[in-house]
C-alpha cells in the first residue's frame, strides 16, 4: 500500500468520492464557525474598528493563494518525474482556485486599505508580489488553454510552473529591494511560533484558515475528478468515431 496507488485514476476517483463529503462538510463547518465567530462574536479593534474583521477572509485567502501555487509546483514535479496523469490534472484543477484566492486577497486588501491606509492600492512589496503572482497564474492558465495536445500542455505548463516559481521568488525579493513596505508584518509568523494578533482574533482566524484549506482541497478534488472524467469522455468519443 503506497501513496502512488492513487495515481491510478480509478483508485483516485474512488478515494476522492469517499473523502469528499467529509472535506466539504469540514470546510463548510469551519468556514461557518470561523467567519460567524469572527464577524459577530469578536470585539472591534481599538484602532481599526470593525474593519479588522476582514482579516478572516484576507489572511486565509492569501495563505491559500500561495499554497495553491506550491501545490501546483509539487504536482508538476510529480508529473515531470513520474508521469502520473492525475497529478498533471490536479495542477490544472488547482490553478483557477488559486487565482480566485489571489483575487479575493487583493480585493479584500483593497477594501481594508481604503479606510485604513487612505488608498485602495499602494506599490507595497507584498501587494506587488501578489499582483505578480496573479499574472503568473494568468499565464499558467492561458498556456493550458492554448496548447491542444493534453500531454504536451501538461509538460509545458509543468515547466512553466517550475520556472515561474523561481522567478516568483526572485520577484518577491526584488520588489522588497525596490520599494519600502506599507503592509504590516505577518499575523501568524510560523518561523518564530509566536503571533502578532491577540488570542481573541487568533482562534476564529485559525478556524477560517483551516476552513479555507479544506475548501481548497474539496474544490481541487472535485475539479480533478471533473478533468479525469472529461478526458475519459474524450477518449471514448475518439474511440467511437474511429469505430464508426
Amino acid at each position, binding site marked *: 500500500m503506497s501513496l502512488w496507488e492513487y495515481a491510478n485514476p480509478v483508485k483516485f476517483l474512488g478515494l476522492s468520492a469517499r473523502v469528499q463529503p467529509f472535506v466539504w462538510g469540514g470546510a463548510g463547518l469551519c468556514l461557518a464557525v470561523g467567519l460567524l465567530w469572527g464577524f459577530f462574536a469578536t470585539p472591534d479593534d481599538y484602532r481599526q474598528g470593525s474593519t479588522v474583521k476582514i482579516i478572516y477572509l484576507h489572511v486565509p485567502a492569501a495563505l491559500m493563494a500561495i499554497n495553491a501555487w506550491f501545490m501546483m509546483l509539487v504536482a508538476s514535479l510529480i508529473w515531470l518525474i513520474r508521469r502520473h496523469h492525475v497529478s498533471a490534472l490536479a495542477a490544472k484543477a488547482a490553478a483557477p482556485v488559486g487565482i480566485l484566492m489571489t483575487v479575493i486577497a487583493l480585493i479584500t486588501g483593497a477594501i481594508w486599505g481604503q479606510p485604513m491606509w487612505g488608498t485602495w492600492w499602494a506599490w507595497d512589496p507584498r501587494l506587488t508580489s501578489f499582483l505578480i503572482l496573479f499574472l503568473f497564474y494568468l499565464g499558467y492558465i492561458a498556456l493550458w488553454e*492554448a496548447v491542444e495536445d493534453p500531454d504536451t500542455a501538461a509538460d509545458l505548463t509543468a515547466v512553466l510552473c517550475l*520556472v515561474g516559481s523561481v522567478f516568483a521568488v526572485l520577484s518577491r525579493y526584488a520588489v522588497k529591494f525596490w520599494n519600502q513596505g506599507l503592509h504590516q508584518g505577518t499575523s501568524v509568523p510560523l518561523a518564530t511560533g509566536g503571533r502578532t494578533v491577540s488570542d481573541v482574533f487568533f482562534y476564529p482566524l485559525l478556524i477560517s484558515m483551516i476552513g479555507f484549506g479544506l475548501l481548497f482541497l474539496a474544490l481541487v478534488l472535485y475539479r480533478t475528478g471533473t478533468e479525469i472524467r472529461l478526458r475519459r469522455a474524450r477518449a471514448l468519443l475518439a474511440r467511437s468515431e474511429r469505430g464508426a
Partner: protein
Amino acid sequence: MIALLRRDLMLAFRAGGGFGLGLAFFLIVTVLVPFSVGPQSDLLATIAPGVLWLGALLACLLSLDRLLALDFEDGTLDLLATAPLPLEAALSVKALSHWLTTGLPLVLAAPLLGVMLNLAPSGYLWLVASLGLGTPALSAIGAFGAALTVGIKRGGLLMSLLVLPLYVPTLIFGAETARRGAMGLDATTPLILLAGITFGTIALMPFASAAVLRMTLR
C-alpha cells in the same frame, strides 16, 4: 555553433530579416513618451531611466517571435533537435544572436534617446552599463518564452503574457540602477544584483528552453 550563429546573424541582417525593427520600435516609444506625459524637461528627466528601460524591454519582447517561429515553420528546428549539437547549445546561440541583433543596438542607441529625454549627465554610464548587463537576461528569458509558445498558432500575445512576469526582477534591478545613477546615487548594489540575474539566466535558462522545445517537437 559558430556556423549557426553566422547563419542566424546573416538571416537577420539580410533584407526581410527584421534587423533594426526593434531599434525603430524603441525610438518610436521614446518619442511618444513626451507626447503622452508632456514636454516638461524636469519631468522627463525624472522618468527617463524607467522609460528607456521599459522601451528596451518591450523592443526585446516584440522581436522574440522571430527567434524560433520561422525556424519552426521551415523545419530547421527539427534538424537542430536531431543534430549532434545539444539543443541547449543551439538555444544559447539563438539567444546570443537575438541579443546581438536586438539588445546590443538598443544599448548603443539608449544614450542618444537619453539626450532626447533630458537624462541627467551622471546617468549615461549607469544606463549603458545596466542595459548592457541586463538585455542578455531579457534574451535568455525570452528564448524560453519563445520555445514555450512556438508550437502554438498565433502565440504572440500569449508569449507576452508568459514572458513579461518573468522580466520583473530584471526590470526592477536594471531600472533601479539607471535611476540611482541618474540621481547621482551609488548604483553598484542593484547593478551587481542585475549581473547575478543575467549570469544566472544565461547559465540556466537554456536548459529550460531546450526542455520545453523538446516537448513541443516530440
